[in-house]
Structure formats: structure tokens, C-alpha cells
């Protein structure tokens, strides 16, 4: 284990004051994650630093911010991924969210978008383990799983952890603050997959078919690139476009 001296330039803002950057240097192990350095700044230097965090293992989604301009979950970001250790890391809040204080943003608009479909955060699990993960393909092949006698399915939380990274990375969001956003649209896509009810399906497709819905997306795929959970919101927006279009043809055929 090696110790690293990490310098952070952290965005600071308190209500009624001018935003600025404060610079702090802390010592962390080379195996630590960026959240550990931010935590140390708070614990050792400045308890007035406000930031969001809970789980420290990419499950809650609360700690999302920008490191050197790129949206990241600091709880799973190692220092080697974001710099060479010599240049200070710039730590800033997410874009496209109102800033509350320092690194804390107001996520109410985001959660309103996530509520539009009322998508449950659990779903049926795949019937294989492990899940296909890019860096594991060569080591291990997925294996079929058999259910215990008393369960009809295994269940699993949805991959989306509602971190807001996609909304921050989205160029459409920057020009249309009413845009339903990548995560909100992806959630509607997931809700659509979970229902067989024709009325519910029609309702969900109507939701995304407005001027701030799927057609507003510029297909920049920044959301898919930035998502730490491989949700692929842009792919789901494209799939929604296909479904909405197919549905229109069906309606034309019937009339």
C-alpha cells in the first residue's frame, strides 16, 4: 500500500455568497476512492463542506458529482482513473440541477421525472449468474440458476440508482429544462416492459410522445457514456421511439 497526497479543488457555494473554489490536500491510500478524499477534507479540514453520500458502494446514487468536468460516482472512482496524482482534481456539483450548497444539488426535479412512470425499482432477475460484465467475459461464462422450491422467481433491484449523472451529462437537458431526461425516459421504458396492460402501455407511450419527451433527445448518447450502471438510457430512448412509431402505424391501420 502506498500513500498518496491528493489535492482537491472543491466548488464552494453558500446561499447569499459568491461561488469559489477551495483547495485542500489530504493523504489517502492508493487503493482509496475519490469519496474517501472528500470525506477526509470534511473530517480533517472543514465540517462546513456539504456533499451527498450514503452507501459508498454505488447502490444509493447520492454522491454523484463531476471530477475534472466528468460526471462520476466518487465512491467507485479510483485516483488512477482521473489523473496522475500531480494535478489537483477539480470537484464540482452536477450540472443541470439547482445548486443548494457546495456539492449538494436539488434533486427534486429529477425525482419528479422518476415518479412519472411510477416504475418499481425491483424486477425479475435473469436466469443466469453472473450478469454479463465486460471485464469478466474471458474469465467466467454465465451459468444457469435453478430456483429454490418456494420461489417463483429471483428478484433484483433495477440497475438505475437514480444518481442524476445522465441528467448532468445530457446536452438536451442544458437547453430544455422541461426535458423528461434520460433516466426518466429509461424508467418509462422499463415500466413498459413490466406491464401487459394495454391501457397502461398506451398511457406510458403517450407520456413520452410530447415535445419534452423522446423526440427532444439529440441522440448524443452522452447519458449512456456517463452512466455508471450500464443502464443505456439513450438506447432505451431509441427503443421508445421505435415503439411509439410502430404504435402510430397500428392506429393508422385500424382507422
Amino acid at each position: 500500500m502506498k500513500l498518496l497526497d491528493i489535492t482537491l479543488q472543491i466548488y464552494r457555494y453558500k446561499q447569499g455568497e459568491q461561488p469559489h473554489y477551495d483547495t485542500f490536500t489530504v493523504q489517502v491510500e492508493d487503493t482509496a476512492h475519490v469519496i474517501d478524499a472528500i470525506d477526509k477534507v470534511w473530517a480533517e479540514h472543514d465540517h462546513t463542506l456539504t456533499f451527498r453520500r450514503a452507501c459508498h458502494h454505488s447502490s444509493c446514487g447520492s454522491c454523484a458529482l463531476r471530477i475534472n468536468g466528468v460526471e462520476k460516482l466518487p465512491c467507485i472512482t479510483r485516483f488512477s482513473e482521473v489523473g496522475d496524482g500531480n494535478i489537483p482534481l477539480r470537484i464540482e456539483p452536477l450540472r443541470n440541477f439547482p445548486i443548494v450548497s457546495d456539492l449538494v444539488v436539488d434533486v427534486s426535479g429529477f425525482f419528479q421525472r422518476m415518479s412519472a412512470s411510477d416504475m418499481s425499482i425491483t424486477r425479475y432477475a435473469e436466469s443466469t449468474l453472473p450478469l454479463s460484465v465486460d471485464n469478466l467475459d474471458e474469465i467466467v461464462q454465465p451459468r444457469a440458476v435453478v430456483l429454490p422450491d418456494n420461489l417463483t422467481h429471483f428478484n433484483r433491484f433495477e440497475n438505475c440508482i437514480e444518481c442524476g449523472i445522465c441528467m448532468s451529462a445530457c446536452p438536451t437537458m442544458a437547453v430544455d429544462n422541461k426535458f423528461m431526461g434520460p433516466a426518466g425516459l429509461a424508467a418509462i421504458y422499463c415500466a413498459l416492459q413490466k406491464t401487459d396492460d394495454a391501457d397502461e402501455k398506451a398511457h406510458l407511450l403517450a407520456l413520452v410522445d410530447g415535445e419534452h419527451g423522446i423526440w427532444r433527445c439529440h441522440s448524443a448518447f452522452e447519458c449512456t457514456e456517463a452512466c455508471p450502471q450500464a443502464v443505456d438510457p439513450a438506447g432505451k430512448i431509441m427503443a421508445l421511439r421505435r415503439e411509439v412509431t410502430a404504435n402510430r402505424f397500428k392506429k393508422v391501420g385500424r382507422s
Partner: protein
Amino acid sequence: MSTPHVIVIGAGSTGSATAHDLALRGLRVTVIERGEVASGTTGRNHCLLHSGGRYCITDQESAIECIEENMTIRKIMPDLLELNDGLFVAITEEDLTFKERFLEACAACHIPARDVPVKHALEMEPFLNPKTLAAIQIPDGVFEPFRFCLAFLATARLHGAVVRRYELVTEIISSGKSVTGVKVRDYRTGKIETLGADLVINAAGPWAEDVAAMAGVRVPVQPTPGVMVTLDCRLNNMVLNRLNKPSDGDIVVPQRATCTIGTTSWKVKDPDLITIPPEHIEKMIVQGEQLMPIVRKIPMRARMAVARPLIVKDASDERNVSRTFECFDHAYDGVDGFVTISGGKTTTSRAMAERVTDIVCDKLGIEAECRTREVPLASYRLFYQGGQQ
């Protein structure tokens, strides 16, 4: 007399569940949290909805509490759980000697347990150690601590509770021998404000001793961190536990596309300053390999540590303290209007809330039945909507 106002310090699982219970019984409630919801002990927990199996041999009281609360949590937040059950597996002959005792202890604690043929267990969990000698299925589950708290707080808000985040309690104000309120510092603005209260509840977890000190009383809480290691791949659907006495690294809790090995135990003075000992991380991998030999080949996604608020009963071994919770009415220490609730686990936080709310209602002369066993919680997403940020 107007409706009494109760201040809850801390928005971890205990504070959140307590706010919900108080609000449901018609009290005016203000929760004060210095950071984000669940930013302390609760957030960084193992996400295990305990069946009680882990404690049934060593601590029957905890085990019974766990299975009762496990069933209640399933009722009040059904959409916030991964419910795939768990297995207790024997890998060595020594583990196997626990099998009969474990089955008997489960029966005694009313924990449903099924002896699963090893061949079937290996089909259910293909990465389980092929040397497995026995597997017992119990109703473990997985929750998300952050959303667990948000759901309690969102529901509390619907019943009038106010949740103030990024505010630090800097002083507990007394008049004579009674606590009458708190002074808070808002980290968003730097402003100091005084809030009056008929009663203050200290639900600050491992920080409970610091909060109690502001009121001039002591609570015997020992901050006891544990290390957890999250792998970048989900290897198991069910929670995998080692069939033996509770020990370091004897459980792998899956969640979403990951799984987390835990945990260890050591003592610290200041829960704000925890340095993860590198050898604890290696220990998790070594122990995790016992349950699933593939563990070492999987890249690490995260590792974390946070202090548990264990109540000290026997100073010789931090593992031998009861895992069950304690409620201190500090009127017995000469300070009225101030109650500490500490110890316990996220799984049992609703029961802890019920106990402390019973005491608080009693002290304030309020007659109201606890309804948190039956009332389904509102969507956690509502927490961030319509309230102050």
C-alpha cells in the same frame, strides 16, 4: 395544550423510523441531520434484511426481533426489497457440527428454515464452494438503507414532519433540569437558529455520546467499525452465510449487479475518522473465497467502513455485546425531556422507533397506539418532492 413538538437528532434508520412513528401518532416532529439522509452508519451498512439466522445460536433475543421485523418490513415496504432468501452453508466438518443446533435454534426463534440438499443448493448458487457439506435456507432479504430511510421520512412528511438536512445541532438548551430545545447551525447559510421542543430524541448512532454530552449526560456507545468489500459482479442470488458462529467475512450479500463481503470489527474513538486497515480488505477476500472460490478473480468495485453504535456491556470483546437496542430516558440521570435510542440494526429500526415513541408518548401524556406495523410507507421518491431541499 397545543400538540407537543419533538426534535429527532439524526436521519439514519433509527431517526427516520422514529420520525415516522411520532408523526403517525399525531406529534409535531422535526428531524435534524447534519448531512444527507443515511450519510452515517445506516448508509454504509451491509444491506442485509436479517432473518435472525445470524444470531439464533448466540443471541436469541436479537434473532426473534430480527425475524419479526423482517416480516413487518416486507409488509410496509414491499417494493424496496430484493427477496431471494439466504443460505447458511457448511464448508468444513467444524461448520457441519453447527447444523443440528442451527436448525433447533431457528425453530426456537420461529425462523422458517429448510434443509436443502447440497446438489440443489449448488444448482441454485452455481458459484458456491463445491465442497459445501450442508445448506439451510432461511428468509434473509436485501434492502437499500438510503431508500429505506427516505421511505420512512417521506411518509413522516406526509404526516406533517419537517426534515432539516445539512444542519448541525451545536447546543442542547435546558431550563432548570429540562431540555427545552436545540441550537442548530445551517451549513447551507452559516445561520444559527434556536428551535424549541417539548422533548429531544438523540438518534445519532455512534455520535450519540457526543450529542448526549451536550445535554450533560453519558451513553455507553462504542463506535465499532467494520470493513465491507463490494465486487464488480453479482455472483449469488441469495444471501450466503457461513454456518458457524458469527465471525469476520462470513457473509456475502448480493445486490443489483454486485455483491458485498463483510465484515470485520474494531474499535475507534472518533467515528468521523476511520482508516480502513488494508489487511481487513484481504481478509474479506480470503473469507469470501471460502464461500465462493471465484471471489479472488473478480475486480473490486468499492470498499467501505463505518462505525456501528454498539452498546458496551462487556468491555473484553466487542463481539459479545448484545446486538439488540437500548433506550435511555435521561430523566434518570437528572435531565428531563431528553431520550437516547441507540444500538440495534437497520432491520430492527421500526421496533426501536416503537419503543422510543412509546416512552416519549408516556412522558408527554399522549395516548396513541403504534401503527407502524400496518401502515404501508409512501414512495421514497416523494421525499425529494414538495419539501425544502
